[in-house]
């Protein structure tokens, strides 16, 4: 089977001008900067190479500024690389952007592809025309997606008036209306509630398994990665530092942090797969290996002790996950 994505030594450097050190202030500086700018080059992606097989679900993770989004933008065609080559479904993305657009669906968590002033229903209709979709097939697909994501009630509201959760569900529907072969998801669950996150993860996974859709995902939510993807590419400082099956990395990803505020200064809680992190008195931070102990079991055990005032469950920061992966690699 042909790979869906082939990337060879892809690089992206941004150039910008900055004020020269020791340059005088005022009009003279402005004039000097005009004729002799101090150009700085920052390499956001420093030569990445990888392939993604058709139907594969791959997570690209890394700390903020690692180059994940830049890589995705180059692969979707909205950013030209400084050097290197890429083939996405037989297209060179930055040269055949509009042709490739028919084949890919993209969700950038921070950017909306819907028209904020139009009712969602009209946005979907417009997308059908923009992607030249036959009415019948597209309507059936749209209706199925609307039902699946539970957005039927918001169809008559302008996208600009939706809550973040509603909007993201509609964004996913919009990105899938034209039945893309490849899905780029950049932080698709950012800011969503647990139910919405679960709906999106389940659907993306099922869609890929049932229709052979290729998925490339970036997320700071380790559950997105764990539940959707089968392979993880770790990027840092614009370079790929690791490319492994998810099974190899599950011990780093399958973790949760539970923070308990208690009336007692400390809590005597010992469970398998649960480590205690340093914390202030009346605060207990537990790191849970979810492969060994479920979060609800830990919370139930804590509540049984009595005097619990607050509970917070969160993922470990991605920076920490990546750091631990490095540390394990070095050993």
């Amino acid at each position, binding site marked *: 089977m042909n790979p869906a994505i082939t990337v060879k030594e892809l690089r992206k450097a941004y150039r910008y001008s900055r004020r020269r050190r020791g340059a005088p202030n005022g009009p003279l500086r402005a004039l000097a900067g005009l004729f002799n700018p101090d150009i700085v080059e920052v390499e956001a992606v420093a030569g990445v190479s990888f392939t993604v097989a058709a139907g594969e679900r791959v997570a690209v993770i890394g700390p903020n500024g690692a180059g994940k989004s830049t890589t995705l933008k180059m692969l979707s065609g909205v950013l030209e690389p400084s050097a290197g080559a890429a083939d996405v479904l037989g297209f060179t993305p930055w040269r055949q952007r509009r042709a490739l657009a028919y084949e890919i669906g993209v969700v950038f968590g921070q950017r909306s592809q819907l028209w904020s002033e139009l009712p969602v229903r009209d946005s979907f209709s417009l997308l059908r*025309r923009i992607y030249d*979709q036959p009415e019948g097939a597209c309507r059936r697909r749209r209706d199925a997606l609307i039902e699946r994501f539970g957005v039927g009630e918001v169809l008559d509201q302008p996208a600009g008036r939706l809550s973040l959760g509603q909007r993201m569900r509609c964004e996913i529907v919009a990105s899938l209306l034209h039945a893309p072969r490849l899905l780029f998801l950049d932080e698709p669950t950012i800011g969503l509630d647990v139910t919405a996150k679960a709906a999106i993860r389940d659907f993306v996974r099922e869609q890929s398994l049932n229709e052979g859709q290729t998925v490339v995902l970036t997320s700071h939510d380790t559950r997105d990665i764990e539940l959707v993807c089968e392979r993880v590419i770790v990027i840092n400082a614009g370079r790929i530092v690791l490319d492994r099956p998810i099974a190899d990395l599950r011990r780093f990803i399958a973790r949760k942090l539970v923070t308990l505020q208690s009336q007692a200064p400390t809590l005597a809680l010992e469970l398998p797969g649960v480590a205690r992190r340093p914390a202030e008195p009346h605060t207990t931070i537990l790191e849970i290996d979810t492969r060994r102990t479920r979060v609800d079991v830990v919370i139930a055990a804590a509540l049984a002790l009595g005097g619990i005032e607050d509970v917070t469950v969160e993922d470990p920061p991605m920076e920490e996950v990546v750091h631990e992966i490095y540390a394990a690699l070095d050993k």
Partner: protein
Amino acid sequence: MRSTPRWTSRPIETLLAELGAMAASFRAGLGAAVAAWPVLLGRAIFYGVCLMVLTAFWDKVGSQRLSGAFALRLPPQGLATYVGVTEWVTLSVPAIQLKLEDDIRGGALEAQLLKPKFYLAQAIAGQAGGMAARLLVLGAAALALLAVSGRAWPSAGGIAAAAVLGVVGAAIGVLLYGLVGLTAFWIRRVLPALLIVQKLMFLLGGLFAPISLYPDWLRIPATLSPFGAHLAFAGQAVIGLSVADFWRALALQAFWLAALSLIAVLVWRAGLAKTLKAGVS
């Protein structure tokens, strides 16, 4: 579940698909403007207030004893209908420069570039849909105001000519403001460019006074400029325009429509090339 068709390299099919998507954007823009009918109503009221002020001004000017070329060129029925037409066009043209500025500077352009159709054409078509609603509503308001004002009606031919030249002039306005919006590729805020275009619109477009009143050294460049094609021709139609002048005006408008479209495409390409290299803001 694939539901083709996909990309085609055949130019006719591509063009038809592009026009089909533009028509859909136009309908969506029209629908959104009609759905926001209180805004349309508010604009019609504002239009009426503007006309009251401007016609009072021109009635006052008309009642003064004027001398020289100015007095000779002032139309006998006054300028109320002239400003009625130029304001009709001005208040119908969408603020497309703000939409482009928002998309280009706010980052929404990135999501739009991921679609397989020409973004600028889609944006213009969507805004033109809203403009069509405003042209209809303000046009009806103009006729109603003229009826209740008791002023003399222009000839039916003059009204028809103003309607045609006004609609084409409004389309030229969309392109002019669209070009202002495209400067967002290079400048953070398009306001400085907008101010320049608005002043030219005021002066060369004949927003408040027909360019036929101008001295020749200014009248000729104003007539030949896109600003004259945007506003003045339609206004002139209701205060006196021969059939030959009408066709000349329409031909000049067609020229500016084509020229500004070409310029917009070239500017868009330059801006897009910059954006694809440097990334969306």
